[in-house]
C-alpha cells in the first residue's frame, strides 16, 4: 500500500493544460462569467488575453455566445461554476450546444460539494443526471491531475459537445506512469475478487483508500475509475462486476440519476445481479461543510466505503447460507 503523492487541484491542471494548448492553437478560447479566478484562469488571462472572453455574471449568455463562437470554428471552453452553469443555462446547453451540435466544451468548475460550506446554492449534485438525459453531450469527470490533463487535451480535439467537471481541492496522483487515458474507456486501477468499487471523479481516491483498508483484512477489491459517464464503457463495467461478489458505486452527486443508477440500470438489463450499494449524496437536505467533511458524513471515505463493502459481503454470505 503506497501513499499517493499529492498533486494540484484538478482545476489547476485544467488551467495549466488549457494554457499550453492555447499557446499552440489560437482558436482555443476560454469564455468566463466573472469566474476566471475561481477557474484558476487568471494567469491564462494574463498570458493569452486575446484568448479569454469575459461575459460577466450571465451564464445563459455565456453558453449561447460559446455556441456561436464554436459555430464559427473556435475551440471553446465555456467555464463557470458547475452549480450555475448546469442549472441557469441548462436550456442553452440543451439547445444551443447539444441539439445544435456545436462542439463546445462546457466546463463545470468547483463541482459537486467543492463549495460544500457555501450551501445548496453552490452545490452541483444534479448535473450528471440532467446532462445524461440530453442527447449529444459527452460527460467526463476526471479523478486526478493525469485524467484531467488527458481529458482536456482530448476534449479540445473532440468533434462533439463535452461536459467536463472539476473540483477545487488538491488531488493525489492515482495513476501509474504509462497509464492510457481515452474518453469513454474506464480505467481499472485495482483488480480483486470480493468487492468492486466503481467510482467517478474525486471519489475514486476514497474508493482506493477503502480498497487498501479492505486488503489489510484479506478482502480484495477492484477499483474502476469511470471517468466518462457518456459514452459509458459498458464492457468494463460488466467485466468488473462479473468478477466480484458485491458492488459499491461512488459519486459526488445525488444518488438519483447519476453513476450508480446508470450502472444499476445496465446490470439489470444484462441480468447481472450483485449485492449493490449506491453511495453518493442522499435525497435529503444536504449537510454543509468542507468537501472532505461532507464526504465523511455521507460515507464517501475509506472507512465509510470499506464498511459499506463489508456489510454487503456479509449479507451476500448470509443469503448464501440461507439458500
Amino acid at each position, binding site marked *: 500500500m503506497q501513499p499517493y503523492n499529492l498533486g494540484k487541484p484538478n482545476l489547476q491542471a485544467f488551467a495549466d493544460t488549457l494554457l499550453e494548448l492555447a499557446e499552440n492553437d489560437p482558436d482555443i478560447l476560454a469564455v468566463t462569467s466573472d469566474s476566471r479566478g475561481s477557474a484558476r484562469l487568471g494567469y491564462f488571462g494574463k498570458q493569452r488575453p486575446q484568448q479569454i472572453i469575459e461575459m460577466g455574471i450571465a451564464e445563459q*449568455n455565456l453558453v449561447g455566445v460559446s455556441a456561436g463562437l464554436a459555430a464559427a470554428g*473556435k475551440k471553446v471552453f465555456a467555464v463557470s461554476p458547475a452549480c450555475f452553469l448546469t442549472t441557469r443555462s441548462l436550456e442553452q446547453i440543451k439547445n444551443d450546444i447539444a441539439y445544435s451540435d456545436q462542439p463546445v466544451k462546457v466546463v463545470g468548475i468547483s463541482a459537486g460539494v467543492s463549495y460544500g460550506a457555501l450551501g445548496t446554492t453552490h452545490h452541483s449534485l444534479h448535473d450528471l443526471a440532467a446532462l445524461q438525459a440530453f442527447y449529444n453531450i459527452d460527460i467526463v469527470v476526471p479523478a486526478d491531475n493525469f485524467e484531467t490533463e488527458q481529458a482536456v487535451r482530448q476534449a479540445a480535439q473532440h468533434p462533439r459537445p463535452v461536459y467536463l467537471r472539476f473540483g477545487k481541492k488538491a488531488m493525489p496522483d492515482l495513476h501509474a506512469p504509462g497509464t492510457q487515458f481515452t474518453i469513454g474507456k474506464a480505467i481499472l486501477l485495482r483488480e480483486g475478487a470480493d468487492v468492486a468499487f466503481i467510482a467517478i471523479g474525486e471519489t475514486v481516491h476514497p474508493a482506493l483508500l477503502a480498497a487498501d483498508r479492505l486488503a489489510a483484512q484479506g478482502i480484495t477489491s477492484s477499483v474502476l475509475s469511470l471517468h466518462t459517464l457518456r459514452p459509458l464503457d459498458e464492457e468494463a463495467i460488466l467485466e468488473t462486476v462479473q468478477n466480484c461478489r458485491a458492488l459499491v458505486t461512488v459519486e459526488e452527486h445525488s444518488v438519483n440519476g447519476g453513476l450508480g443508477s446508470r450502472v444499476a440500470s445496465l446490470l439489470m438489463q444484462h441480468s447481472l445481479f450483485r449485492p449493490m450499494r449506491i453511495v453518493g449524496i442522499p435525497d435529503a437536505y444536504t449537510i454543509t461543510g468542507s468537501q472532505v467533511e461532507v464526504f465523511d458524513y455521507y460515507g464517501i471515505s475509506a472507512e465509510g466505503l470499506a464498511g459499506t463493502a463489508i456489510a454487503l459481503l456479509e449479507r451476500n454470505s448470509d443469503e448464501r447460507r440461507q439458500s
Partner: protein
Amino acid sequence: MDIATLEFKSIQYRRSILTMIKEAGAGHTGGSLSCVDILNVLYNHVMKVNPGNFRSPDRDRYIHSKGHSVEALYTVLTDCGFFPAEDLKTFCKLGSHYVGHPTRKVNGIEQNTGALGHGLSVAVGLALAAKINGQGYRVFTTMGDGELTEGSIWEASMSAAHYKLDNLAVIVDRNTLQITGRTESVMTLEPLADRFRAFGFALREVDGNNLSDLVEVFDQLPFQIGKPSLVLAHTTKGKGISFIENAVDWHHHVPSDAEMGIALAELSQAEANWQATYATV
C-alpha cells in the same frame, strides 16, 4: 434585386406559408406573415449567403431567433435554392427534417432555435468570432417582440455593445401581439427603442412590411461604427390577409378550407394589383 421583384416574391412567399401550414395542419401563421418581408429583403438583397457559399467561413450568418416562424424561413430558403420546394410537403410530418422550428438538418439553417431568447447570444458569438478572426462577414438575427421578456436577450444585448459588434444587426419583429394578447398587456416593453438604445444599440425604426423602406434601412448598416445595430421593424401580425391581420387567435391557427380560399383569393388580388402597378411602368 429591384423593389418590384421583392414585392412579387413577398406575395408568393405568403402563399407558400399558408399552403405549408394548411397541408401540415399546424404552424405559426401570424408571426410568419409578419416577418416574411424582413426575410425577403435579408436573403434577396442584404446578406451574402446562398447555397453556393453556405459552407464558406466568410458567408453572412442568419439566426432565426423567433424560431416558431419557421414557415417564413423555409419559404425564403427554398426560393433561394437551398432545397427543393417539394421537400416542404413533409413539413411537420413524422421523421421530416422540416420540423416546426429550425434545425441544422435543413440546408441553409445555421442554428437550432425555437426556445425563445437564445438567438441573440448565438449571433453575438458568431459576430465576436468575426472580430477576433478579422473576418468581414456580418451576422443577422430576427427576434419576436413577445420574446423580448426573456432575460437572456438583455444579457446578450449588454455583451453585443460591450464588444462593439457593429457587424451584428438585430431585427425586432414588432407586431405588438403575442399568444395571449397585446404585448403591452402581457408585459410592458415600451419604451422599447429607448431601452435598446440604453443597452448600447444604434437603432433605426422602419415599417417592417414595406420592402423599399426595409431596403433603405438595411443599406445604412452599420448604423454607427462601434455599435451593434438594431432595426425596430414595426409590422402587422398576419400581414397580407385581411382576416388574419392583427388577430390574436391567428398566432398558430390553421386556416379552414373556406378561410384558405379567401386568403388565396386575396393573394391573387394582390398579384393582380402588382401586375397593374408594374405593367404600367
